[in-house]
């Protein structure tokens, strides 16, 4: 059984077998992380491909000072967030182009159902994911890494290249924001 350091060395030589092994080993982690952020299965799959292509192209820049998984999480989260920003820009541009319309920029976003959520939690989880989608980027990333990937605050801090206390603060603010959004949602739907 080949160890990770040897695998990375082989990948740096462009070895296809090493690349395949890395993809097979990490694909669920990458896909799940991206899915939590972009909340669309088709887009998440395309972006997961992008991530591994970037890994192949940029493996020479991986110096081994952080864990490989940390580096991979960073590429995955950055790729997902870049995609969301690009979507937002296109949406704004599309809105400007259609100025003859009613001026209402908000379109209804379909509910996202994460495939890993248990059946009895599906509807609640869909409401929660909508609220997560509205969080600021850093809070969204920290929340996704902690809740969906089960990373500790320490691991999250390494991915975000920040301190553990900063992650605690992000999570606290994320929870407050989520509660506020959920309160608005349930006040609207329970009256």
């Amino acid at each position: 059984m080949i160890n990770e350091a040897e695998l990375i060395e082989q990948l740096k030589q462009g070895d296809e077998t090493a690349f395949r092994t890395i993809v097979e080993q990490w694909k669920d982690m990458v896909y799940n992380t991206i899915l939590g952020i972009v909340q669309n299965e088709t887009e998440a799959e395309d972006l997961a491909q992008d991530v591994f292509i970037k890994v192949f192209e940029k493996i020479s820049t991986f110096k081994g000072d952080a864990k490989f998984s940390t580096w991979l999480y960073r590429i995955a989260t950055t790729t997902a967030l870049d995609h969301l920003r690009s979507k937002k820009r296109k949406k704004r541009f599309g809105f400007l182009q259609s100025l003859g319309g009613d001026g209402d920029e908000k379109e209804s976003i379909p509910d996202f159902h994460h495939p890993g959520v248990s059946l009895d939690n599906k509807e609640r989880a869909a409401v929660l994911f909508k609220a997560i989608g509205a969080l600021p980027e850093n809070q969204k990333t920290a929340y996704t890494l902690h809740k969906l990937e089960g990373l500790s605050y320490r691991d999250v801090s390494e991915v975000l290249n920040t301190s553990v206390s900063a992650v605690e603060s992000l999570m606290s603010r994320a929870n407050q924001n989520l509660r506020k959004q959920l309160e608005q949602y349930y006040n609207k739907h329970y009256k």
Partner: protein
Amino acid sequence: MTSKEKIQQEIGQTLQSLDGLKRAEANPFLFTRIKARMDRKANVWERTFSFISKPAIAVAIVVVVMAVNGWALWDGPGTGETISAETNGSELANEYNVVASVDNYDYDNLTNE
């Protein structure tokens, strides 16, 4: 239970709805798709380089570059005047009111001699 308490209960349950969540699984053929994309990308570059490295295309590019450089150097039609290295120094001096001797330099009464 009041409406407010019920809402707080709903919020609490919703926040816990991701507990025990299983990781989503990627497409089992993800590597095949990645490989196909990388091969397509490599083919585009290969096609581009093989096109411009064809002798006829490479020569055509060189000829165009040389033609553009040549046109820039010759600078179009021009006036036909050239500056001769044998231009009389005194003519230049007269034209620009240059007086060789510093002692005789009369700033106020500069004339062409």
